[in-house]
Every structure is written in structure tokens, then in C-alpha cells.
């Protein structure tokens, strides 16, 4: 097995495993993107569908990883398996969601419930601070890359020859490495900054305690995201060092380039599994503050397929994701489309530079 095939197979395995355990990170009141009132959390259909989802997605992971191992030819070929793997897991998710929704609607789970939305004004009058210091490692890696690149650049030939024998412009390669790092760092820090200004993910029935838990979750998750940015930048630095002929990895050692990114994915997954979405797995009971009457609002109608949030009346740009841990954009807000446009415009820029450079 070559390095490309090894990293491709591991990617298929890790992505499948993460999708398999995703329900374990979610809020108990959100099952497969369906809002569930507290008194229905133990409904038989939820237990049954969770069990079925775990078995089905585990089977998908095993089949896809076995296929990736069997192909064992080229990293890109094995990575193509990610597409059917993702589609199969999505089908498992939608099947579970459809069955829970059917029972919810048939039994009128929210009938007679007092549905409320709660805001904790202390979130704005005493807002959490964005961890700027955790951005330093990522910026330090970018600075180191620029320094090494500037030192190596004059001594390099006009065209670099890759391992596969292709000739690439040294300017394009150098620009792509540094621009890639800046893109990742800006994307991670920019999105987290928006999250800090967005609505906290709190439960109406336990607002004070869940705000406290969300503060701790946001602090841990944002630090993890900025660390992931630093690790991804490190992978690009290693790629740059290889292209600038500082070192020449050979054999399975070439897979080491992906090691920082893999460590980042592992870190983020561990934080998500330990804290739960919005800090739902953390302890954070507030003594002396009673629980609000009522339950969370049944807002399923704003969630397409339980994954995509579209609410034109909500001025928030980002909202807490309903499946897994993290956040998603509110596609009902024009600002969200501007962000998506910016992300894809940057991608398009990279592709244009790559094409011009003959990559």
C-alpha cells in the first residue's frame, strides 16, 4: 500500500466513523434534526431509530473501508469512495428522521405544550471574549512559512519538478502555499468571530444553566478550531518545504504530511464528544435560579431535511447545528449567502492560479 492509498483509506474510515457517532454529540432534545419535547425523550421510536442508525452507518463504514483497501491503487481513487459513503450515511439519517417525524406528528408531541424562546441578556451585557491568543500559533506558522519561502525562493529554479515529473512555476507554488494558509486561518477565525456574535444555543426549560454550559462549550470549541487552523497551516508548511526542496519525503513517509490535519480532526472530534453540542454533556447547574416554564419552540419547519436552516424572520447569520456539534448558516439571511460567495470565490481563485501554474 502506497502513501496516497493509506491516507485515502484512513480518510474514508475516519469520516465514516465520525458520521456514525454524530448522534452521540447532539442535544437530547434534537433527535436526527427533529425537535423533541422533554417528556418524549424516551419514546420507543427514538431508541429504535438511534440503534438502527448506529448499525446501518457502521455497516457503511466497514463496506467503504473494505472497498478502499481492495482498490489499493491511488489516493484519489480511494477518496472518491467518500462520496457514496457520505450519501449512504445521509440516507440513514433521513430514514431515522422521517420515522421520528411521522410518530411526532401522529401523536401530536407538542400539543398543549407552552413553547418558548429564551434570551439571556447577560450574553450581551457580559459577552464572552474571543480567544485572540489562540490565533498566535496559526499566525506564527504562516510567518515561518513566509520566512522560509523568502529565504529559499532566490535559490530555486524558475520551475519546480514534482515527484510525478510535472514542471510547476515556483512563484505559483509559493503563492498557493501561503495563500492557502491565510485562507484557512481567516476562514476559521472569521467564522468563529461570527459565532461569538450569534445567538447562544440555550434550552428554554433550563436557560440559565444551559447559557453557562454554552459559554464553556464555546470557549473549548473555539480554541480547538483555532488549533486545527494552526495544524492545517503546518501541513501546508510541510508541503511548502517539500516543494522548496528543503526535504524529500519518500515512501510511506509522504503520508506524514497529513499527520497535523489528522491530529486536528481528532482534537475537534474529542472536544465535540466530551462537551456535546452546545455543552449539553457538561455539568453547569445554577443554584437559586429556577427553571423557566415551557419547552423549546417546535421550529422544525425552518430546517430543511433537518440540516439546512432557512428562516427569513431570524436576523441571525449562524445558528447551532441540529446534527453533530458546531454551527450552520441561516440561508434565509442574505449575509449568509455573501459568506458562502466569499468562500467559493476564494476557492475559484485558487483553482485559477493552479490552472495557470499547470497544477
Amino acid at each position: 500500500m502506497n502513501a496516497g492509498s493509506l491516507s485515502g483509506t484512513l480518510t474514508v474510515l475516519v469520516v465514516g466513523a465520525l458520521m456514525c457517532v454524530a448522534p452521540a454529540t447532539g442535544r437530547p432534545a434534537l433527535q436526527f434534526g427533529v425537535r423533541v419535547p422533554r417528556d418524549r425523550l424516551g419514546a420507543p421510536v427514538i431508541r429504535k431509530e438511534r440503534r438502527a442508525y448506529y448499525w446501518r452507518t457502521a455497516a457503511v463504514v466497514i463496506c467503504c473501508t473494505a472497498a478502499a483497501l481492495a482498490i489499493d491503487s491511488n489516493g484519489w481513487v480511494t477518496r472518491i469512495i467518500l462520496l457514496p459513503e457520505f450519501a449512504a450515511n445521509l440516507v440513514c439519517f433521513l430514514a431515522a428522521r422521517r420515522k421520528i417525524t411521522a410518530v411526532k406528528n401522529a401523536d401530536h408531541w407538542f400539543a398543549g405544550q407552552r413553547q418558548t424562546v429564551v434570551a439571556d441578556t447577560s450574553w450581551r451585557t457580559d459577552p464572552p471574549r474571543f480567544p485572540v491568543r489562540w490565533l498566535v500559533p496559526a499566525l506564527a506558522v504562516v510567518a515561518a512559512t513566509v520566512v522560509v519561502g523568502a529565504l529559499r525562493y532566490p535559490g530555486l529554479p524558475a520551475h519546480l519538478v514534482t515527484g510525478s515529473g510535472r514542471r510547476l512555476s515556483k512563484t505559483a507554488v509559493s503563492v498557493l502555499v501561503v495563500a492557502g494558509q491565510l485562507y484557512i486561518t481567516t476562514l476559521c477565525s472569521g467564522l468563529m468571530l461570527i459565532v461569538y456574535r450569534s445567538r447562544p444555543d440555550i434550552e428554554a426549560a433550563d436557560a440559565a444553566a444551559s447559557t453557562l454550559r454554552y459559554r464553556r462549550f464555546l470557549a473549548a470549541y473555539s480554541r480547538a478550531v483555532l488549533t486545527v487552523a494552526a495544524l492545517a497551516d503546518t501541513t501546508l508548511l510541510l508541503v511548502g518545504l517539500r516543494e522548496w526542496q528543503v526535504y524529500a519525503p519518500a515512501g510511506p513517509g509522504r503520508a506524514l504530511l497529513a499527520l497535523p490535519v489528522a491530529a486536528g480532526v481528532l482534537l475537534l472530534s474529542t472536544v465535540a464528544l466530551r462537551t456535546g453540542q452546545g455543552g449539553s454533556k457538561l455539568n453547569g447547574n445554577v443554584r437559586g435560579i429556577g427553571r423557566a416554564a415551557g419547552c423549546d419552540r417546535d421550529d422544525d419547519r425552518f430546517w430543511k431535511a433537518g440540516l439546512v436552516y432557512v428562516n427569513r424572520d431570524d436576523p441571525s447569520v449562524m445558528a447551532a447545528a441540529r446534527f453533530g456539534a458546531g454551527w450552520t448558516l441561516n440561508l434565509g439571511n442574505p449575509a449568509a449567502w455573501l459568506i458562502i460567495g466569499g468562500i467559493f470565490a476564494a476557492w475559484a481563485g485558487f483553482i485559477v492560479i493552479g490552472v495557470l501554474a499547470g497544477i
Partner: protein
Amino acid sequence: MLLSIEPDGPVPIYQQIRDRIVEAIAGGRQPAGSALPSTRQLAVDLGVNFHTVNKGYDLLRQEGLLRLGRKSGAVVRRDADSGPPDPGWAQDWAGRLRTLLAEAAAQGLPAAEIVRECQAAIAEFAFPDAVADGVNGSGSPL
């Protein structure tokens, strides 16, 4: 302060926002001089249009409970410790209270239960010491 609304309830959202803030001021959770989130921030947190929050804040401003400034934002203007209300306000309030009590009487709620409910609500408010003593010492002022 926890601000709870029912978006699908019969009471307009701006009215609910106004009511919850009045209750927080009366309960001492939002004293005079304390800041409230800006209209845009509260709109994001409640997931409602910011014009709705603006309408609720404007009601409170008209009632003299909130001061809205470009730089200072929304600040609570007065509370129970800020002295007697503006002239004429008590008369208007007494009229509204009469209607509210009439609703309870018309629906057949016994007088004793109406008084009990009123006392329970007053017990949750942060009255200045002198007024609170008056309520507790001489029985019910109602």
C-alpha cells in the same frame, strides 16, 4: 436577566418583550442604570425581526422606564427605588388594574383568590423597604 417569550402565542411579541422587561425591573433583576442588549442583539437572541424589539423598547421609553441613546444603548431609566411615578400615571394605572380585576371577577374567580394572586405577585417585586414593610405590616393594601 432571562427574557422568555412565546413566539406563537396570542400576545404580540413586542408586548411580551415589554412585559418581561417591566417584570424584571419590578423584580429587581434589572435595576435603574443597568444596560439592556441593543435592539439588533436582542432580535438575534430571540430570533425575531429587530423592528419588533424596537417597538417593545419604544413602548418602554414612552412609559419612562427606558432611556435609548445612540452611544449608551438601552438603559433602564427608573425602578422602585427611583421615587414616586410621574403625575397622572397612577390614575391611568388604576383604571387598567380595575379592568384586569373586573376580568377575573367576570370569569368567576373568588375575591379571596384574586387578593392571594395579587399578594403573591407583590411578594416577587423588589419594593423599597418602607413600602414592603407597609404591605407586610398592615396587612393587604388592596
